[in-house]
């Protein structure tokens, strides 16, 4: 009896997948999102990328997304669900999906996977990420120019290399304008908690910071800075709505072009497992309009953006001096090597704080 039930179930499953395949002359593309698409930050920008994809290739593909998927074992189930629904190319859009994606990728060698911001790859699993530190460098220049108190406030999420390299790029840039600039760093130990991010912004401002920078996801710090008449940078997405007189610029994740390129490759049958780490030159992110600053500051920002895009300016140009005053070994020729930036676990000289865990 049990056997026949199983057989029936298997038959149904098979029928399900067959019907999905026959109906799908269109390529099915799946997305796994960490937050709700309305988070106005990380997930929102990924979904804008998906929408751009649909706009461009909508007649050839069909997209599905699952939002609010927690990182960890649950993600594996969600990814497999997309596989079973017939998706042939699946984007998993958060660091914590790395191992679950790899596991599912090994199980389904005929499905292609794309994992954002991770470092584990396989024959059928690519990774993609952005050189956000380039944008942070530009922000550092602006911040140093605009700060009257000479104290910047920085709200970090977790002390991981991506965030640490952002802080270092910011301060290295700021030092070129004001060598004695100070940065106060508060770790929220969360990516998303509007209340806590707001409290951190208040604490930084109360301690004398007048330009707020954030590496957490909600617009709360922007909104507090606006309330207190200070300046701030947005994160991931356009946040000027929350501080029309406050936002200087914002690093905008623009995943659309990458998604379109990869899906086109999949359609053409030329998809290969790759490691993409794109910067301003490859349009993986953009800078929001430079606002609320005088023209000379705007010019500095635009020049830096052009120089970085052209490859003439590298935020981590050697020599980079660590907090202990010693020069960091320069493994990338004239600049720090990509691997050193991707694994950055030290503060540069000029930051009077201890990196947690160091």
């Amino acid at each position: 009896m049990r056997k026949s039930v199983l057989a029936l179930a298997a038959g149904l499953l098979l029928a399900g997948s067959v019907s999905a395949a026959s109906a799908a002359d269109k390529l099915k593309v799946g997305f796994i999102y960490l937050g709700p698409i309305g988070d106005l930050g990380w997930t929102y920008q990924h979904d804008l990328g998906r929408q751009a994809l649909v706009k461009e290739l909508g007649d050839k593909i069909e997209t599905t997304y699952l939002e609010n998927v927690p990182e960890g074992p649950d993600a594996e189930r969600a990814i497999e669900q997309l596989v079973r629904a017939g998706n042939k190319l699946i984007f998993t859009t958060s660091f914590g999906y790395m191992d679950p994606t790899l596991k599912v990728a090994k199980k389904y060698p005929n499905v292609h996977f794309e994992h954002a911001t991770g470092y584990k790859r396989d024959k059928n699993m690519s990774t993609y990420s952005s050189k956000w530190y380039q944008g942070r460098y530009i922000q550092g220049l602006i911040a140093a120019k605009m700060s009257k108190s000479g104290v910047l406030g920085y709200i970090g999420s977790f002390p991981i290399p991506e965030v640490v390299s952002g802080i270092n790029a910011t301060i290295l840039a700021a030092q070129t304008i004001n060598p004695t600039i100070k940065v106060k760093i508060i770790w929220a130990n969360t990516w998303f908690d509007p209340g806590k991010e707001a409290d951190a912004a208040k604490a930084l401002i109360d301690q004398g910071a007048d330009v707020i920078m954030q590496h957490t996801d909600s617009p709360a710090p922007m909104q507090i800075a606006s309330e207190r008449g200070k300046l701030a940078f947005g994160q991931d997405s356009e946040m000027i709505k929350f501080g029309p007189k406050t936002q200087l610029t914002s690093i905008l994740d623009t995943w659309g072009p990458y998604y379109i390129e990869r899906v086109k490759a999949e359609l053409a049958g030329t998809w290969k497992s790759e490691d993409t780490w794109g910067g301003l030159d490859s349009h993986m992110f953009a800078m929001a309009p430079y606002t609320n600053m005088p023209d000379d500051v705007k010019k500095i920002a635009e020049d830096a953006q052009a120089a970085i895009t052209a490859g003439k300016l590298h935020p981590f140009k050697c020599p980079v001096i660590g907090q202990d005053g010693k020069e960091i070994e320069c493994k990338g020729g004239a600049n720090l090597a990509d691997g050193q930036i991707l694994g950055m676990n030290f503060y540069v000289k000029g930051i009077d704080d201890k990196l947690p865990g160091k």
Partner: protein
Amino acid sequence: MELIEAIILAVLAASTPLLLAATGELVTERSGVLNLGVEGMMIVGAACGFGGAWLTGSIFIGALFGIVAGVLMSLVFALMALGLAVNQVATGLALTILGIGLSGLIGAGFVGERITPAVHLYIPGLTDMPLIGRVLFGEDAFVYFSIALIIGVWWFLYRTRAGLILRACGDNHVSAHALGYPVLRIRTFAVMFGGACAGLAGAYLPLAYTPFFIPGMTAGRGWIALALVVFSSWRPGRLVVGAYLFGAVTILQLHAQGWGVGIPSQFMSALPYLATVIVLVLLSRARTGGSTAPAALGTVFVPDR
């Protein structure tokens, strides 16, 4: 001096949603019902509260929307856990999951919109006093209301006959029933009060704390409120201590990081939980000792008719 004032103001703002939600849950639990759905009721309160204020332009109406939304959510719980005698723990957890989903749906239309937050009291002269002026006379209405509410709850529980009956239901529903008290009706009211408070606490977030709505913005505050009720050993006075202590350590650890004291931030982030647990446990050991949980807490009651 200004910094101290700023810190106290931030502490009060951070503590108020916890105090409001925990006050409601305390009354609910004192009647013998364990509603783990505080987080769910809060987030729906936040979505509806913001929606109400955004549509009408009135913070007061927004707060009312939040309260009504919390009550409606709590009625779902009451129907299941009291009416149909379903397991309270399971129902409460389900309510949270439902609330998180529902709030995203309700809020989808106004994500990214902003409103003018609740105004702060201003009395010329008094509010301008250094250090204590803005702390005592410059808060928004939610802060004053939350303090009035917990005093009212204390008075109700310990100084009124109705409060005594409510506590009786929580300690021994069979006896309360035998004495002729409508246990389920009383518990339903207690659950509704809890829902109203949670809804208001949720509404506080987008109406006064961070004046915009984003799905998931309660970020676990409902669970902290639940924990505060337990660690306060179900006493209003200790609940106030717990809520403000939690808020204070939360804010102070942020400032400590800004000052660069060099303690790992991960430990600092855990500190509010640690400090609150230790202090409240010490408080309850020192006075009475042992558990003071309502004896019938979380148990199903089906009256024999």
